[in-house]
């Protein structure tokens, strides 16, 4: 039975991730008053990219992108999608947090090998932005973990099933809001798109990615956006029992996210850090204090 789950959950994550990408391009087009590409455009892009030849800068260039996609796939195994939580028995929320390192680290290593200053600037911005949003994110996760007194995400979901969503319960609504404030940064979407800014650093770490490398990079982006939102849904919206309902929640959160980032200009890296370390960090810190005070 677990083998089936192990096979099924990455496929679900892949399909939903690609669907989210297509949906975001369609919604953004409609916001810009234009017709926009068909929903299946990312699939067409990936098919085209896999039929293009590409240039490689060496072994680490290949290994890095493979590692980053593999890492994102493995995180999905640890993340409960509805009932499907194949491997979350062998390591709780801490393992998920650490496995989420693989994505950016893999792309950083392969981008470094590409020997192009655009990639180096892109990667240094990615890591600085990641440090920026990690500060509030860790406070939020600590608040949730110490509130439910457990580091296993399955128990947190089960606890929310019995009582009510933690986003609605008092002490945890504060970290929930903080998480929503930093979600665009985690996804790397418009207000914080300085990682892959096409105009400034010609799409950052992706500068040297040709055919199949770009395909793997887009799939990795699809996985990582699915993971970040699934984490939010599991921790705050009480990820539901059947996967269908869970996927509905993920799509709703993603649409809200797209509506936000379709209308924002791109922040500079200092502004992004100053914003992330001011409001979300304060709210998350207050959340942790509240949880500490209202300890059961």
């Amino acid at each position, binding site marked *: 039975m677990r083998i089936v789950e192990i096979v099924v959950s990455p496929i679900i994550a892949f399909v939903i991730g690609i669907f989210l990408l297509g949906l975001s*391009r369609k919604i953004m*087009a409609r916001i*810009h*008053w*234009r*017709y*926009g*590409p068909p929903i299946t*455009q990312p699939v*067409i*892009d990936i*098919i*085209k*990219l*896999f*039929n*293009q*030849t*590409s*240039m490689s800068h060496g072994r680490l260039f290949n290994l890095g992108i493979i590692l980053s996609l593999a890492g994102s796939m493995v995180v999905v195994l640890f993340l409960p999608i509805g009932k499907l939580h194949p491997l979350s028995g062998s390591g709780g929320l801490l393992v998920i947090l650490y496995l989420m390192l693989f994505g950016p680290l893999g792309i950083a290593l392969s981008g470094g090998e590409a020997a192009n200053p655009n990639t180096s600037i892109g990667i240094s911005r990615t890591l600085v932005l990641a440090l920026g949003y990690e500060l509030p994110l860790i406070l939020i996760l600590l608040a949730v973990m110490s509130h439910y007194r457990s580091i296993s995400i399955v128990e947190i979901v089960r606890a929310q099933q019995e009582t009510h969503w933690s986003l609605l319960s008092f002490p945890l609504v504060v970290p929930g809001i903080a998480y929503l404030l930093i979600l665009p940064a985690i996804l790397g979407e418009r207000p914080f798109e300085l990682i892959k800014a*096409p*105009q400034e650093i*010609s*799409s950052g770490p*992706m*500068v*040297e*990615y*040709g*055919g199949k490398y*770009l395909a793997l990079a887009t799939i990795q982006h699809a996985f990582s956006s699915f993971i970040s939102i699934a984490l939010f849904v599991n921790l705050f919206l009480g990820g539901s029992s059947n996967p269908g309902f869970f996927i509905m929640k993920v799509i709703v959160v993603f649409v809200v996210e797209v509506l936000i980032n379709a209308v924002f200009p791109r922040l500079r890296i200092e502004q992004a850090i100053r914003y992330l370390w001011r409001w979300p960090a304060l709210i998350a810190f207050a959340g942790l204090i509240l949880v500490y005070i209202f300890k059961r």
Partner: protein
Amino acid sequence: MDRNKLVKWSKEPAKMGHKYSLHAVYFCTGCGIIEVPPSITARWDAERFGVIPVATPRQANLFLITGYVSVKTLKAIIRTYEQMPEPKFTVGFGSCPINGGMYWDSYNTIKHLDKYIPVDGWIAGCMPRPEAIFVAVTHLWTLIDKEMANGYKKYRAKYRYYRANQEKVLGTLEWPPLFSIEGKDEELVKETA
């Protein structure tokens, strides 16, 4: 997605992929680049054809050369063209890349661009309107369908002559040849003699 499209997708997905997702290199050569932004934004949405501008030649397969090509820009164009991955299509935008346009007698502009890099499609007009880009894109679709948009194959097959023409105009080139050109070709020897 009507029935025959599904059939086409199942038969050759690669060709359909290349048709419906043309990523254009955002390379501003001449005055024509003014026509590209309006074709991306709301009034003439290029994204419905799957055409989006990308920052680097590595990610692109459509190369729009917009406006007159000076000798100095030709170097950058050749370098960018050679950095693009293989199934790549070029479209000359405006009359200047075709035959020099109004700079036909200038000492510093390239008259016939297809002597230096292969060009699959031309859009005539001294700065054609954005709709012309979509006409070119649809024409390109039919070319790709009929396997006629094979500029990149020609470039690979006759690279020696392209390289000779480029060196005639630009003198010695700093970057190594993209494909190997050992073995003297008799026709070339006759010419340079």
